[in-house]
């Protein structure tokens, strides 16, 4: 079973040289720590920066330089700042090649729910709806099941949707899955996790073809 860092590390393997990437809050943020050797990617944060760097050294925090998670950050050489309309022009106009974000539920048709639990607090969708409606390439990073042990990979989302039919790939603590028109196709297993365990943790249709390899780090 993967921990959060390993989920991020596995997702980092999906990065390709020259991509602009938007990382959501939580596990997705960790992806930046595992960029494979020899490839160059640039991170966009939707509050208005391209070329986002690591957290600042203590004492060098700048209140005017934060990421979409409101964390203090730094800017790399070649960075650019811009306003929110321009930022979402980049996102909506599909200039960002990969979006990684978390989810509360994903359906086997690619629907995603990650912004609202009716009757409980609603924090708002932020930029998530723009991101999922626009990006060609969306990877969801999440635990396979919720805190109550219920599957988060469903036939149909039960929570209010963030976007429809948009998720392409899911990396969980148990597996890598692709959304196909027949359902969740199991691509890789986490080290030591059996197909049966994944099957048991997946409410939606799970497609298993031949031997499913273990992830390689």
């Amino acid at each position, binding site marked *: 079973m993967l921990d959060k860092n390993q989920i991020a590390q596995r997702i980092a393997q999906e990065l390709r040289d020259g991509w602009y990437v938007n990382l959501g809050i939580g596990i997705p943020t960790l992806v930046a720590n595992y960029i494979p050797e020899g490839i160059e990617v640039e991170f966009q944060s939707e*509050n208005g920066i391209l070329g986002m760097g690591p957290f600042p*050294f203590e004492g060098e925090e700048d209140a005017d330089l934060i990421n979409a998670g409101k964390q203090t950050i730094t800017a790399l050489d070649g960075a650019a700042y811009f306003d929110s309309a321009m930022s979402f022009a980049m996102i909506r106009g599909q200039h960002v090649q990969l979006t990684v974000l978390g989810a509360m539920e994903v359906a086997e048709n690619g629907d995603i729910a990650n912004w609202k639990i009716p009757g409980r607090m609603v924090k708002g969708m932020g930029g998530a709806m723009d991101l999922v409606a626009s990006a060609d390439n969306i990877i969801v990073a999440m635990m396979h099941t919720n805190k109550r042990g219920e599957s988060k990979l469903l036939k149909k989302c039960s929570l209010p949707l963030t976007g429809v039919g948009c998720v392409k790939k899911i990396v969980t603590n148990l597996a890598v899955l692709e959304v196909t028109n027949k359902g969740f196709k199991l691509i890789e297993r986490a080290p030591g996790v059996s197909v049966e365990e994944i099957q048991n943790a997946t409410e939606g249709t799970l497609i298993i073809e031949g031997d499913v390899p273990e992830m390689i780090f």
Partner: protein
Amino acid sequence: MNKVVNNVVDACEGIKDGMTIMLGGFGLCGIPENSIAQLVKLGVKELTCISNNAGVDDFGLGLLLQEKQIKKMISSYVGENDEFERQMLSGELEVELIPQGSLAERCRAGGAGIPAFYTPAGYGTEVAEGKEVREFNGKPHILETALTADFAIVKAWKGDTEGNLIFKGTARNFNPMMAMAGKITIAEVEELVPAGELDPNQIHIAGIFVQRIFKGAEYEKRIEQRTVRVK
């Protein structure tokens, strides 16, 4: 064309109960601190506030929420604020949530005389309820309309007497398009210089969009999530 007013009191003159106010900023970054404090002092009530976030309990728009001055919030993300949560769950506060990109574009549209535009964001979700859906290039989009405000209040880094503005880092965020969308736009700045001192090539928002400008007396610039690494 001199847009300079003496202070925050003069800048906020005419803001009245029931008005719609746009406020720049993302989280606590780039918010018009001095003007928000003045709104609290003025005690104007029943405000509709358009702002990406709602501040935290004791800073930013949270200060107006504490005083129950806000009737309705139009935002994309309103977490990190207990008083907000309480007022919302109790029904005291009306809340309209808008995808962040649509919020930005709707403000820009309001300033640019574009009454409506199509976007894919929110299609198939509750955001699309009651909105026209139309397909372009085989993909469904929803129709979103422009937002404007009685007053837009923005915070810039540098400004000149003509109202030209330059923002700093990611404190730019919603400030430029809200400056465009205010019937009256108030800009508070950290540094106010005479016309001619700013390079006309580096202006982020031209003075034509700004009616009043002043130097903020003080900036706390609070950091919401201080994250650092070890040297």
